[in-house]
């Protein structure tokens, strides 16, 4: 009975089988731990969605991302090809090997090693007659060649990573190096072992067959066959035994992540299992390193997500925890789609005593409710000209509006969230939410993208639409509530991280820019961080200025006469390093505004209930 199950058999398969069983058991254990570590609501999401269409969608994404690596093609075609050939090629080798062995043994269930070492047990068609007929052996050779071509790219990348679109690559840990060596050896040794078998038996397809007959023409291959298969089995074992402790554990983890993500599970403090899964799914590919502006401003400091994920995965203390600006450029670039910003924020959690905010109701509402609530935000209070401009625009448009934080005391809570103090942020959220809803407003306009993001993402404000002032102003212009004169200058737009990448408001500011200025000379680059970010409190002023200068350089590529931004903090960061004027949208709109006579009754109502805004700053 046993003989029938394990047939065909040779002792060398034991090495591979041991490695495979180890990695399989470890993976299963991890999957159980990940699911155990989900919060109750996340577990519910899992059970509710597992038998839905989402599973199929996730499967599609697994094929697209884990096998074909579509996102990496977006970084660089050669880099994408390298990843695709290794992953997809290897997968096809496994798949075709399996089909071939099932076809020949007519047994659906058999030990895994049978298909892996199939060429040893069944040398394939006779060479050269069967070499070019598209049978199993042909396809196996084709995909082996495919993998080997990817391997050639991988080796080339070690020396000239720039040719594969990467200025910098990750430095590897010792365990990673061992696994990498084993991985690189697997395919050449497989080629040699298969060629030797084919050469000794006069069989094989175009690659293994021709190589085999070439070897056979000057040496006797018979004594080499078995040692080569032993070596092949050994490198597979070495790879599998190191895999759980290296970055290569992303290979089994990433598909699990894709499934759970499709079911709607997100990184949160309540689900440590999902966070651990995300950390494991990071392949340390290093695509996140080049987009990081701190790679230039703070060379040598391993702030980039690829390194940061490694330190928390290995539970090591991080000395760069407070340095990341959380601009989100790495998150956008990440081919695995990891939620790097929440992971970073949560790693900062519980570092201090929680904030007891003693807010801050809206004073002076006078029992009146206005349609629009204007929330300037802390940062805007440091740039009073934005508040002045917004006042002018509101008044010109004849809107019924009220300045919510005219006294400058209210905070949206996002700065606390960025510093990892979720509890404090939530307390503020609760208070403000209640106050906003009680105000009876329908529209909440804010000048600060930081506030805009948290209002949109975290606040629950039924019946209140949240707009950033760029969106609001654009609407006013489109509805002809205000009219602007186009300026004769060329302008470049600096996209604030929190507004563009963070909240997805990319279209409206550009549209507004085209209405205000003669020519839009914004360079075609992913939004840069101004260096002023609240995300990285640990950065010194010198570093912040260096980041701002770098960004300013890139933004001036089109020789703009004026730099326009949509964030008071960006304005403050760029002003000291810029040769050209830096303005917020509201300021340029206020400048270009064509004064109109406003309906007197509306103007009256706004004036009486508005506090003096400029004094508050």
């Amino acid at each position, binding site marked *: 009975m046993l003989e029938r199950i394990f047939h065909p058999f040779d002792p060398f398969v034991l090495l591979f089988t041991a490695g495979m069983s180890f990695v399989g058991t470890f993976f299963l254990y991890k999957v159980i731990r990940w699911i155990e570590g989900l919060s109750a609501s996340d577990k519910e999401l899992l059970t509710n969605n597992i038998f839905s269409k989402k599973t199929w969608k996730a499967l599609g994404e697994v094929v697209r991302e884990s096998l074909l690596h579509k996102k990496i093609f977006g970084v660089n075609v050669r880099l994408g090809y390298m990843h695709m050939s290794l992953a997809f090629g290897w997968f096809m080798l496994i798949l075709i090997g399996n089909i071939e062995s099932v076809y020949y043994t007519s047994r659906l269930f058999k030990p895994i090693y049978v298909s892996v070492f199939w060429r040893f047990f069944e040398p394939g068609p006779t060479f050269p007659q069967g070499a070019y007929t598209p049978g199993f052996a042909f396809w196996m050779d084709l995909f082996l060649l495919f993998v080997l071509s990817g391997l050639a790219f991988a080796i080339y990348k070690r020396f000239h990573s720039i040719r594969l679109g990467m200025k910098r690559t990750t430095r590897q840990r010792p365990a990673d190096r061992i696994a990498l060596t084993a991985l690189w050896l697997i395919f050449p040794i497989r080629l040699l072992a298969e060629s030797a078998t084919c050469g000794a038996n006069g069989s094989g397809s175009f690659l293994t067959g021709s190589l085999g007959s070439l070897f056979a023409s000057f040496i006797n291959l018979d004594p080499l066959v078995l040692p080569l298969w032993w070596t092949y089995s050994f490198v597979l074992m070495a790879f599998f035994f190191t895999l759980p402790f290296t970055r290569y554990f992303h290979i089994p983890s990433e598909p699990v992540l894709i499934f759970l993500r499709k079911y709607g599970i997100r990184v949160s403090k309540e689900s440590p299992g999902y966070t651990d899964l995300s950390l494991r799914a990071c392949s340390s590919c290093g695509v996140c390193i080049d987009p990081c502006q701190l790679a230039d401003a703070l060379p040598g400091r391993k702030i980039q997500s690829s390194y940061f994920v490694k330190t928390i995965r290995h539970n090591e203390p991080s000395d760069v925890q*407070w340095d990341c600006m959380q601009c989100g450029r790495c998150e956008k670039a990440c081919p695995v789609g990891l939620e790097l910003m929440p992971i970073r924020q949560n790693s900062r959690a519980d*570092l201090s005593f929680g904030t007891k*905010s003693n*807010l801050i109701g809206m004073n002076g509402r006078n029992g009146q409710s206005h349609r629009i609530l204007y929330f300037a935000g802390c940062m805007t209070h440091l740039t009073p000209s934005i508040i002045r401009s917004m006042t002018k625009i509101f008044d010109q448009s004849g809107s019924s509006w009220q300045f919510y934080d005219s006294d*400058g*005391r209210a905070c949206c809570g996002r700065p606390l969230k960025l510093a990892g103090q979720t509890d*404090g942020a939530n307390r503020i959220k609760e208070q403000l939410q209640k106050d906003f809803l009680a105000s009876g407003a329908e529209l909440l306009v804010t000048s600060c993208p930081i506030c805009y993001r948290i209002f949109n993402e975290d606040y629950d404000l039924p019946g209140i639409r949240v707009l950033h002032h760029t969106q609001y102003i654009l609407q006013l212009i489109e509805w002809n509530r205000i009219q602007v004169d186009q300026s004769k200058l060329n302008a470049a737009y600096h996209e604030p991280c929190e507004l563009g990448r963070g909240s997805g408001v990319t279209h409206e500011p550009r549209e507004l820019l085209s209405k205000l200025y003669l020519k839009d000379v914004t360079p075609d680059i992913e939004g840069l961080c101004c260096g002023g970010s609240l995300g990285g*409190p640990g950065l*010194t002023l010198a570093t912040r200025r260096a980041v701002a200068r770098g960004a300013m350089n890139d933004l001036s590529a089109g020789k703009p006469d004026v730099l326009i931004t949509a964030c008071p903090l960006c304005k403050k960061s760029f002003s000291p390093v810029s040769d050209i004027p830096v303005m917020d949208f509201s300021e340029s709109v206020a400048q270009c505004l064509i004064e109109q006579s406003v309906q007197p009754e509306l103007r009256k109502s706004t004036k009486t209930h508005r506090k003096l805004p400029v004094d508050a700053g």
Partner: protein
Amino acid sequence: MAGKRNFGFDIQGGGRQIDLDHADTSLASELKDAVNAWSACINCGSCAATCPSGQNGGLNFRKLHYQIRLELPTLQELSTLSSCLLCGKCQLVCPRGIPTRYLSIQIMQKTKHYVRENIPSV
């Protein structure tokens, strides 16, 4: 001269005297290591002037970090920091470019056990 003269202030009574031989400045030296630029502070008070929590009462950031330099503040003084919103306005107005937001985080981080043990409500 008989009797006491009133100069408008008093150096004898009250608890504001600091015995420099015994003052606990360990927190200050730890903070100086963590936030180097803090040494450049001129105590101008811009941070406290712009502070939303300061305007709202409760926190006087300038006073707090000046006090830390002299000696360990009382628990009551330290716990006022729990109203810090970490909004970062102080950092933007600081004429010496000190990352005051980070200073606040570091004070919280370094004193959290001390404060939590003694004032559980914080």
